[in-house]
């Protein structure tokens, strides 16, 4: 389900002769365009290889026309990633051209020229993103542009650009809150804005708190938002560090998150994204992952108490939802964890075997995996 319930148009299949002829023409036009761009760029590559002088390059095909040809091609097929690379070469050439002119003109004018070029290119990408919000190459190219901007622009100018990107990410996510490209982009942008290069005037506040609230908002709008839960889990360690949370504060935070996920699970125990987040919270009690977790300094006793509490909570969920495979999976995982923490664990091996049997019943396509689990526990 790549489209979150939104039906994908598979394109109209040509039925009449006229439609077929139209389609053939479209194919011919497209092929012509590809030919044109490729020949210009390969000529260019030959030129570079033969080390002609910069003036000669300018007389050849590294020009606005070629750029426009790539624009045309990419508008109809943004997935043709080689063309994006050609475009990068052209843009790089333009950037270098302008910086080579520093000897004759002032630095500011050059900056402006580069900014304008980047702005134009970013604007070119916007309608493409609207049409193809999940094309990797467009997002990659956009990031490339922004990173280039950091080389040529002042910190203040660059920061302005990145701020706009945050708004773009917000817009993409409001159109489709589960578009993981949008979420990934948002994380990258936030990281850049918080990074050393783009230090803002008020460098004491970071964006982590605000982003954490954003994930809460998105979760409240749609509980099944895997990306929102994932981003939340990525933000938490940083958040607690910035808050300089002590053990007490960390435990309170952990308790609140456990309450939150419990409510969510009761409202939708079939939801995989919720169980994933639950697993993330459980990793706090696993000594192997404790160091990077929410509360790294829990005592062994406290860990046992938490695991026991969670175990009871999940077991209660079973009452009335005996056909939910996630609950059994969680119980098994918690039992394994429980046993690793305390020698006389109250969970009986026979119960675990019963749960694995339930998994075999409910999820027979994964029988191999469950049987494997069974035998590994027998040892």
């Amino acid at each position, binding site marked *: 389900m790549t489209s979150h319930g939104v039906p994908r148009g598979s394109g109209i299949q040509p039925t009449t002769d006229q439609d077929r002829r139209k389609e053939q023409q479209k194919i011919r036009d497209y092929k012509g365009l590809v030919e044109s761009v490729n020949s210009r760029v390969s000529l260019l590559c030959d030129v570079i290889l033969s080390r002609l002088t910069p003036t000669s390059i300018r007389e050849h095909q590294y020009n606005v026309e070629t750029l426009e040809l790539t624009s045309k091609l990419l508008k109809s097929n943004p997935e043709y990633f080689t063309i994006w690379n050609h475009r990068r070469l052209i843009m790089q050439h333009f950037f270098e051209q302008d910086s080579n002119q520093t000897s004759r003109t002032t630095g500011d004018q050059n900056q402006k020229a580069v900014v304008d070029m980047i702005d134009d290119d970013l604007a070119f990408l916007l309608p493409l993103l609207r049409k193809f919000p999940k094309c990797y190459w467009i997002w990659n190219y956009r990031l490339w542009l922004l990173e280039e901007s950091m080389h040529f622009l002042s910190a203040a100018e660059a920061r302005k650009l990145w701020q706009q990107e945050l708004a773009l990410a917000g817009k993409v996510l*409001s159109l489709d809150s589960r578009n993981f490209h949008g979420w990934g982009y948002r994380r990258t942008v936030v990281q850049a804005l918080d990074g050393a290069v783009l230090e803002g005037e008020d460098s004491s506040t970071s964006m982590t708190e605000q982003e954490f609230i954003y994930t809460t908002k998105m979760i*409240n*709008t749609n*509980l099944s938002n895997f990306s929102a839960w994932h981003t939340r889990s990525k933000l938490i360690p940083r958040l607690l560090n910035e808050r300089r949370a002590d053990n007490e504060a960390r435990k309170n935070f952990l308790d609140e998150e456990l309450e939150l996920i419990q409510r969510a699970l009761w*409202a939708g125990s079939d939801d995989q994204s919720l169980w994933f987040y639950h697993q993330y919270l459980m990793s706090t009690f696993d000594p192997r992952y404790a160091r990077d977790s929410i509360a790294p300094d829990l005592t062994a006793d406290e860990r046992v108490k938490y695991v026991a509490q969670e175990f009871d909570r999940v077991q209660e969920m079973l009452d009335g939802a005996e056909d939910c495979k996630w609950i059994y999976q969680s119980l098994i995982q918690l039992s394994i964890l429980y046993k690793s923490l305390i020698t006389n664990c109250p969970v009986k091996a026979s119960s675990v075997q019963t749960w694995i049997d339930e998994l075999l019943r409910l999820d027979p396509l994964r029988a191999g995996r469950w049987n494997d689990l069974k035998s590994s526990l027998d040892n």
Partner: protein
Amino acid sequence: MESLSDTVWDVVLAGTGLAQSLLALSLSRSGKKVLHVDKNEYYGGLEAALSLQEAEIWAEAADEGAGSSPYRHATIKNLEREAPVQEADGALKLGFSRAYSLSLSPQLIYTRSNLLPVLVSSKVYRQLEFLAVGSWWIYENKDVTEGGQDGEGDARQGGLRRIPGGREDVFADKSIDLRSTRSLMRFLKLAADPETHMSILEEWGNRAFPDFLESRLSIPPRLQAPLLALTSSPHPPTETLTSYALPRIHRHLTSIGMFGPGFGAVVPKWGGLAEIAQVACRAGAVGGGVYVLKRGFESAEMPDLQASGRNSVRFDKDTGLSTLCLQGGEQIRSHWVVGSIWDLPLQIDQNPGDRMQTNYVARSITIVSGSLAQLFPSPAEGAPPPAGAVVVYPTGTLEPQSTDQTPGSSGLGLPPVYLIIHSSDTGECPAGQCVIYACSFHPTNADSHQILQVAVAKLVASVREDPPATVLWCMHYDQRYNLPATTEDYEANIRCDHFMNDHVLQLPDVVPGMALEDDVLKHVRAAYRRIVGDDDVAFMLFDDREGTGDDIDEN
């Protein structure tokens, strides 16, 4: 110029209420000669929107014209005039008359209703603006054991609670315990999935809805009330059947999110259904229809209804034409005559026809100062700001003061009271004020209007506002309406036996209630088919007229 009586009309439409106006719209491209008259001097008929002055005139006329209108016993209280506050300024006092557009039919339109796609396909949607109806609230009394109960009147304080419309709402309401959360979720999933309904209705259809919720899903009484509120049932819980409740909740839940997050219904701007009627009539006029206001039809005074009908509209077998008489004497000849029972030339007395079942509704319109912003929170991230809110007072939360207050009596038999509140964004009142429409299917007596007043007063008291909101003006009235006895036989419902003439069609009343029902359009379509013939494929499917249309570049 040809007079009205010279023309042989194809269709004469009586009354510019919503149904007749939609029929005019449907005929606007047919090339048929349509004469559309209304006895009032305004459009909208029973669904009209009135300014303050128009409301006063309307209220006076409502009692006089018994038999030509279902409305009666209309009283207006202008509290501002009675007790003006010296320093009152701006939103705290009543604005001028035309600043108000009070709707006699403030129904919300579910996003899944059949009317909205038709407004789009007929291209009139461009002349309309719709606003979202956001939150539904339910009023809950605090526990009786908390405050004093003997003779202390309103010692019971209550409050408003938001009714969950989906999983995220249930999740966010921390007052619901975990098990009930799951039961509620189960119900919501079940209600949204129509394939399970058949088997449920077989077993539970004729039983009370609360029983179904309790026995089948273990939902406690406290959580039953919000679900019952969503059904907009005119009856108390014990009389609301599962067969009534389930499809309505299904409609409610599946409407949410259809046009955007956080809302499932809309209201038209500027005066509710009247605005749609006006736009439809305008389209009818552009299509060549002739509009005449302030003229109704004369009905023959005869001892029995059928004789009266037969003489008010005379049918000529040879030409197939019906002849009827406009007020003022002009004789109108037409192939078809369509109208509501209140606009056709007939004196409706207090004895309804055989096929009808008469009921009454107590209603009120109240203007309050204050924006009541608390009732209009943004329901979800990215949702449009709502301009409508629904507040339900379930059975047991209001008792009439005059009935016997025996300890323990909580008015269990009385129907719920429904309020729909419109903010000034609807254009129905000036900024900083709101209009509260209240309705209850009480047997109409003196108590029923007092109950509406109590409900409005409680609402105003429970909303935190600074300065406190006050009631500026209110109008109370009764509405009589007829439910066709057969519910889904639209062809049958539009027959009008009074005239002994099967070229006279009757469009049933728009049933008062929270939401506009799909039946209205279905009856219009049935009438259209009678007039146009069975080939109704082009019903409400129009191209843009030249000169109109979107000029938006596809890129």
